[in-house]
């Protein structure tokens, strides 16, 4: 079983990396981009029996800092 965790800075938290990417896209002529947010993807190979609740616990304890980041989980 696999799980994919997406970690993103929360809305309202300045994302200077995303902003730099947006700026670079603009410089390349991609002028239809109004905003960029950059996050990370963490793929987990899980042993049999692991549940989404387990992955949620992992996110809360380590994978995301919930002061500044939100996360979403895809079980695959």
């Amino acid at each position, binding site marked *: 079983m696999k799980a994919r965790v997406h970690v993103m*800075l929360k809305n309202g*938290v*300045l994302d*200077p*990396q995303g902003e*730099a990417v947006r700026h670079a896209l603009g410089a390349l002529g991609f002028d239809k981009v109004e905003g960029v947010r950059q996050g990370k993807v963490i793929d987990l190979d899980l042993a049999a029996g692991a549940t989404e609740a387990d992955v949620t616990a992992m996110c809360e*304890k*380590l*994978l995301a*800092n919930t*002061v*500044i980041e939100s996360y979403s989980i895809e079980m695959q």
Partner: protein
Amino acid sequence: MKAAVVVFPGSNCDRDLAVAFEQAGFDVSMVWHKDSALPAGVDIVGVPGGFSYGDYLRCGAIAAQSPICKAVIEHAGRGGYAVGVCNGFQILTETGVLPGALLRNAGLKYICRTVDLKVATADSVFTRGYSAGDVIGVPIAHHDGNYFADADTVKALQDQDRVAFTYEDNPNGSVADIAGILSENRRVLGMMPHPERAADEGHGGTDGTAVFRALAGMVAAA
């Protein structure tokens, strides 16, 4: 007077912090990240700067889960003194001992230079050697020093006089110019600038020594 300095794989300011404690009169033990207990009778724990565990995942995130950090959290929970500098500040926020989080610098650049810090409160064991409003020169060296907390947390820090230091010319985008904060019981200090790198004339200044001397004076008197 006993101080312990935690050493993580990737710490690089551990010895500087130990020397600053020693100069202030502390006996210093270095404590390895895999240890699960602090040496008996430790008055203060120093969590040093550096790049613990390579800054993987987030700065301080993996260090915050280490066995020794559980002991540090317990020490703080008992009302023990602790100071986290730079990566140590990041670690203390990741453990929840201090509120908020450190984000990438707003300018996206690693910054390494001496900055002017204003002492925001002299009402703590760490800052009582200064007067509120003093401006001191202390080096910073970080890529992720942009202090963030939600508006309610920032207001609480300000209302409770828990902002220890602010930047005179904010280098990294920190909310409310915050460079260092105190825990609710005022016994834990986290700050991005490095007072231990301003603790010897050979460093170019000694404005940081008052942090360690004031602490030593308080512990000795206790």
